[in-house]
């Protein structure tokens, strides 16, 4: 950019409204971030410092909540369960869901539009309508409290979600790509695997991340289908928050919350461009 152009931009008067808008946006962002910051701060406080009037912002941070209350509890074990279940469910539903989404986007079938509406409707199925039979069936089959059961249960809402997102994504790709591949001797699956999957990697990745997050934070199925061996972090958090006997242990709750949120936040911020794009496309396309 030449110097004269830059000078011209600087001279253009910027209305006060513009600064008000920037200020408002930053303020809103700050308000929405505050509870997360407060959670992280609280997790480094001693129990006596958590509820003070006025609230303490400056204090000597302690790791007591992390070391004595978490490291020696079943939280690390539950964290591992959560990782296993979330990544398992995310990966399984990504593979199954993206292939189905591709079929729905490409294959000219009568009723493809009806299928699309059905997927959307299936996202409205209340999980409790699935939780009751899943509990009864897996109890009968001896599959309660098992990672696989929870992974399959999560697929019930993740696969429609992935199908919906990826169908929209695949529909935005030109058909000529596969036609060219077919001319060069690719099978339909070959065209999907060699051409479509590589150029869809950003979409696939953001969908995978959203799916993992959805499975990561799921509570209802985890409450119903697990009790000791395969319980996840959300169940632990619900237990701490709902402890009516001793009262909620806020130090532990915020520490567990921080531990579960920080990795996801770092991960989400690293790939934020794809995530925001995937989010916007997923809601509006299709």
């Amino acid at each position, binding site marked *: 950019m030449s110097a004269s152009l830059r000078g011209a931009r600087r001279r253009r008067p910027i209305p006060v409204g513009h600064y008000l*808008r*920037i200020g408002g*946006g930053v303020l809103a*962002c700050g308000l*929405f971030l505050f*509870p*997360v910051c*407060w*959670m992280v701060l609280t997790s480094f406080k001693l129990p006596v410092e*958590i*509820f003070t*009037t006025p*609230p303490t912002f400056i204090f000597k941070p302690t790791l007591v909540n992390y070391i004595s209350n978490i490291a020696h509890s079943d939280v690390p074990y539950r964290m591992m369960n959560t990782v296993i279940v979330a990544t398992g469910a995310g990966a399984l539903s990504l*593979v*199954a*869901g993206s*292939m*189905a989404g*591709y*079929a*729905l986007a490409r*294959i000219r079938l009568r009723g493809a539009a009806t299928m699309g509406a059905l997927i*959307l*409707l299936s*996202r*409205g*199925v*209340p*999980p*409790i*309508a*699935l*939780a*009751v*039979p899943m509990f009864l069936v897996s109890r009968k089959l001896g599959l309660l409290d098992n990672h696989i059961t929870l992974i*399959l*249960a999560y*697929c*019930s809402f993740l*696969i429609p979600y992935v*199908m919906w997102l990826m169908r929209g994504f695949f529909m935005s790709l030109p058909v000529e790509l596969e036609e060219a591949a077919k001319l060069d001797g690719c099978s339909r699956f070959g065209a999907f695997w060699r051409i479509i999957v590589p150029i869809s990697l950003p979409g696939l990745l953001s969908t995978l991340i959203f799916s993992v997050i959805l499975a*990561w934070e799921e509570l*209802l199925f985890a409450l*119903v289908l697990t009790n000791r061996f395969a319980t996840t*972090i*959300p169940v632990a*958090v*619900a237990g701490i*928050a*709902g402890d009516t006997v001793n009262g909620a242990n806020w130090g532990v*709750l915020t520490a*567990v*919350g921080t531990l579960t*949120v920080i990795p996801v936040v770092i991960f*989400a911020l690293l790939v934020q461009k794809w995530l*925001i794009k995937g*989010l*916007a496309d997923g*809601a*509006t396309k299709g």
Partner: protein
Amino acid sequence: MSPAILLLLVILAYPIFYTVQISFAEMDLSTFTATQWVGWDNYLTVIEDDRFWKSIRVTGVYLVFALPLQLLLGFGIAFLVNAEWRGRGIVRALFLIPMVVAPVVAGGVWRMMLDPLWGLANYVLGMFGVGAIDWLGDATYAMATIVIIDTWRWTPFVTLIATAALLALPREVFEAAKIDGANWWTTFRYITLPLLVPVIAATFIVRWLGAVKMFDIALASTGGGPGRATNVINLFIYEEAFRSLKFAESAAMAVIILVATMVLTSLFLRGTRRLENRF
């Protein structure tokens, strides 16, 4: 395609079928199996249960307040965030953070902040001369609590969709309107709004599908209380099924909710399509 269809048949279609089956049967609690066909008995029991209708009403109130609030705030904040400056990308990215806080964690942390005696919220309100509010113990405020928490968690989602939609608006149209002398309101009413209707409608559908499943936040923050003031329908069915072990009645309620959700979703889909055609 086939693996997904097969999986969905096993984990989605079959459970729904099984729920319908249980809802017409009597459950034997010693073996956890459906024993006897009882026709519509479970449905009659549910329909005569005041607690069921109370839960439906509570869910309705929550939806009526939370959804419009989130859409309005989301699009409003998106307008602010989209102001052009160097930090815009960072501000947008930071809005991802509340979205990745698990609802149950959000419920817990907000419960801590809304503690009537020691919570931060009442302290801040106190600085503005507002007396202590019993956020969790008063029926009306408890409802406000779950609406606030849900709005906190989901407005960023709307904001991110809206920022993308606002950025995609065609600039030339607005410049043309300006040249033609359109004022702020006419531009908004006749250009911005019609162009945004499809996005608003789609966002509404997605949020509606998420919001009818409201469970975690209520469980972790108010636990459905005080009394039954925030006992949303999913929480109520969960408790009836897994605390009171009334599986048959719960299945009947689940079927009613399932059908109602499907009908309402179809109506909304049709409505949004009509709305898009009108603009």
